């Protein structure tokens, strides 16, 4: 009797198993496999390599902390580490100093052309950062225009303005490139804060300053924390700016490049990469910890619109402040456009108007243009598929370990580009099981790994807004998983996929920090070409290529902004 019951139980389990719809599991297996092979495996290899001696083959007995000891013994290592710290924290500090007042002004003061200010504000972030760096050389380098001009002004006092090369230059340039994160995120929280909260404080007798420090400011802190983290991650991972204007001053990403390119010492580079990641990770955790204690649910039934300051002085000085910051931060873009039409620019004015810089492009950079387009397109397409499917799994299926998957996907977002390259090189170069060194494939994979978070975030956001009952009601109506996905889920998350893909595509066109370690003779891209042109001092050629890049990226991003409103800053945000 018991046995037959058990048998019945068994058959019902088999029946249940066979009745299931297996399509989703097949679809889900592919991206998970991809992550395992191209993210987990390389990261694991990197971690192992970090403990192996220079040039050593893998063996358990050969493990040691040799590579890390250099941080104690080598002056160059110590300097780089210190530089990375000083640089990142200074950039965060100055970005907040510049960005928060600007956010407050645009959100709370009746300034003219507010939308224009917001659109111009985002420009520095979406443009290639190394372009900003080398155009500051034109302006503030040894023979820089602005420096030249300022030197004439201050000459009577016996001072000379320093060049842009070095720590000051890096902090200056990076701040001007990354402050928009702080500006835009603090703008959006200043303008979306419920004004009733401030009005209530006012009715209870609080003065303007007290209201700002006890109500307004605490409410924007979480958003400010997110912006600061974003700036920190960008600065500590930045390769282009330190490489171009760092001069003697190495930071961790350039040190990694130096180890790989100069010595082909992957094990040494892996150790630096591990240190770099540990720092970023620690800051991330500290930020999460602080933020999680300060996340407020806004309790409100109704809301009124923000009351803006209209006093003329507030309007005048507010606008002036914004305009000055915008002009300084957009100076590189303007410089580049001017420079691209001239032979040289070493005095006050550029000399020798010419079209040659542009006319030379088809001959000199034909391959690079094609490569960039090809790599960015293929990687974007694959990233869109990968990111969407993983977003769907974590958001809809909520498997055990969804949190780990989420973490894994977002990890490359905080990993510096050079670290991703080192990881891929560690796993797939030389006589690896799957040798990929110098191929298009390894670059595409690195792009996918680095940009999946963009699509993933964007799709997760659309999915959380998508009521699960829409899918359930399709199932109830008799549709299987694939039909439901095709007819209901996909059309509704498509806007999320598209905006994530556009962001991916436009940032991939300007990718430098990963490509720089992975490219070979046949796989050079436009940013690589610009970088080496700058290194050779061919500013005209570099400028013309940059202008083309700027225009393409600008058109893409502008179109997207038109299509879906001003939500660009949020697509960069994480967590």
């Amino acid at each position, binding site marked *: 009797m018991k046995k037959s019951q058990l048998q019945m139980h068994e058959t019902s389990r088999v029946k*249940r198993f066979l009745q299931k*719809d297996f399509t989703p599991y097949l679809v889900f297996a592919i991206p998970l496999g991809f992550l395992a092979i191209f993210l987990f495996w390389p990261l694991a290899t990197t971690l192992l390599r970090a403990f192996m001696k220079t040039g050593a083959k893998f063996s358990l007995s050969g493990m040691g902390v040799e590579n890390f000891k250099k941080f104690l013994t080598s002056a160059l290592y110590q300097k780089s580490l210190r530089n990375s710290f000083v640089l990142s924290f200074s950039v965060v500090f100055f970005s907040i100093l510049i960005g928060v007042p600007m956010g407050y002004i645009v959100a709370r003061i009746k300034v003219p052309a507010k939308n224009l200010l917001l659109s111009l504000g985002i420009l520095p972030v979406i443009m290639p950062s190394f372009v900003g760096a080398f155009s500051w050389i034109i302006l503030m380098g040894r023979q820089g225009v602005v420096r030249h001009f300022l030197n004439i002004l201050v000459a009577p006092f016996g001072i000379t303005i320093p060049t842009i090369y070095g720590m000051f230059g890096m902090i200056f340039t990076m701040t001007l490139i990354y402050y928009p994160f702080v500006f835009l995120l603090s703008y959006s929280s200043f303008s979306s804060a419920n004004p009733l909260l401030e009005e209530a404080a006012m009715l209870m007798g609080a003065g303007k300053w007290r209201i700002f420090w006890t109500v307004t400011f605490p409410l924007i802190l979480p958003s400010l924390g997110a912006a600061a983290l974003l700036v920190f991650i960008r600065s500590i991972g930045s390769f282009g700016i330190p490489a171009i204007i760092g001069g003697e001053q190495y930071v961790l990403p350039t040190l990694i490049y130096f180890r790989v390119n100069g010595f082909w010492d992957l094990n040494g580079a892996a150790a630096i990469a591990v240190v770099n990641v540990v720092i970023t990770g620690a800051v991330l955790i500290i930020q999460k910890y602080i933020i999680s204690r300060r996340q407020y649910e806004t309790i409100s039934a109704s809301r009124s619109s923000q009351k803006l300051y209209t006093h003329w002085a507030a309007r005048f000085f507010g606008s002036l402040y914004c305009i000055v910051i915008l002009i300084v931060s957009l100076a590189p873009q303007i410089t580049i456009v001017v420079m691209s039409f001239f032979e040289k620019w070493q005095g006050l004015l550029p000399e020798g108007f010419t079209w040659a810089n542009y006319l030379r492009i088809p001959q000199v950079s034909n391959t690079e243009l094609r490569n960039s387009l090809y790599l960015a397109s293929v990687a974007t397409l694959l990233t869109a598929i990968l990111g969407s499917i993983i977003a769907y799994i974590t958001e809809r299926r909520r498997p055990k370990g969804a949190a780990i998957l989420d973490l894994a996907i977002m990890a490359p977002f905080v990993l510096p580009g050079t670290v991703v390259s080192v990881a891929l090189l560690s796993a797939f170069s030389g006589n690896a099981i799957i040798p990929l060194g110098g191929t298009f494939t390894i670059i595409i994979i690195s792009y996918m790994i680095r940009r999946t978070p963009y699509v993933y975030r964007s799709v997760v956001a659309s999915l959380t807004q998508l009521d699960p009952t829409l899918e359930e009601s399709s199932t109830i*109506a*008799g549709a299987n998983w694939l039909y439901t996905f095709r007819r209901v889920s996909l059309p509704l998350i498509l806007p999320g996929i598209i905006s994530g893909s556009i962001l991916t595509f436009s940032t991939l066109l300007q990718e430098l920090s990963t490509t720089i370690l992975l490219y070979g003779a046949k796989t050079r891209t436009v940013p690589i070409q610009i970088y080496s042109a700058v290194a050779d001092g061919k500013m005209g050629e570099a400028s013309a290529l940059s202008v083309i890049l700027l225009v393409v990226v600008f058109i893409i991003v502008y179109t997207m902004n038109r299509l879906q409103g001003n939500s660009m800053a949020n697509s960069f945000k994480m967590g």
Partner: protein
Amino acid sequence: MSLNLRYEDVDKIFDKGSKHAVHALKKVSFTIEPGELFCLLGPSGCGKTTLLRSTAGLETISGGKIFYGDRDVTTIPPFRRNIGMVFQSFALYPHMNVFENVAYGLRVRKTPDVEVRKKVTEIMELVGLGDVLKRNPSPSALSGGQQQRVAIARALVYDPDVLLLDEPLANLDAKLRRYMRAEIRRIQKATNITTIFVTHDQEEAMAVGDRLAVLRDGIVEQIGTSDELYNRPGNPFVANFIGKMNFFNCVVQSIEGDDIGVILPNGTKLPLLRENYRSDLDIQEGMELLVAARPEHLSVSKASAGPALDGEVTIIQHLGHIVRYEVRVPMASSERTLEIDMDGMVPGIFEHDTVKVVFDKQKAALYAKDVNR
């Protein structure tokens, strides 16, 4: 041809084996007759939505069986069950127009175009949206009531074996809700599809359902028609969930034929009817019981000749067709403030006055104390 719907020992445990395991359904067994409009009623968290989602196959049950007619559907995934379901949020597809929304289930079934057109038109006429279909707008351009009708049409168009309604009226305003519940009953009777209607609103359930099941903590407390549930609730919980019931502590003093004499803590003696004793436990002298009286089975007066209870009027609310007196009596008699409904204002009684509470001895019921709850 309508089917009946049978539950056999249905068990559902969420997060089975974990610390946070929730036993949402406990050995639920009952049968819904073919063509019946059946309401699942209960407070939030009682398991009614879980039972509905399990019927649909959206939740896998942990034990027991569910039958549509003779077919055991327990292991069949939702998309092979041929059911219609209307969600609380309506779940209309924003990227499809009204026609495509309604036609969705037919498209899934690969119905020929001509027939799709015919069936959608028919069903839209049935739910009273013939003219909306001619304009064929996007569902977001419709009012709440119209969206509701589209959702119902979408669930009915492919002739499902069972129709499931998950709090379908919760998103509508009060006036529309009363109108739509009558509409739902009309449409259900016109199609004669076996239907389950989940709600937490007892008035709605009583108005709509042929029969009702009252659930609490995953257990079916009572099943019956609205009339049975209101006039002969099986236990104190159902009594107080279906309408209001006032309870008094008492002790059985005498049992003589059809009469039971009880005594309240303040010494008031009440002669009640044996047929109004509604618990299974054998009744004995000296037993502690609950006297239960609906607001309309109590009255307030300045003075009373018969047995009565002294209390203080706390609030008088004029509700139009009745006047509700809230009266506080000593804690020993009743822990809660009483609600007493009178046909009109009683002259000379004001808030904070002390009054006599008089029982309708023919109607007041007796229950055993609910020891487990």
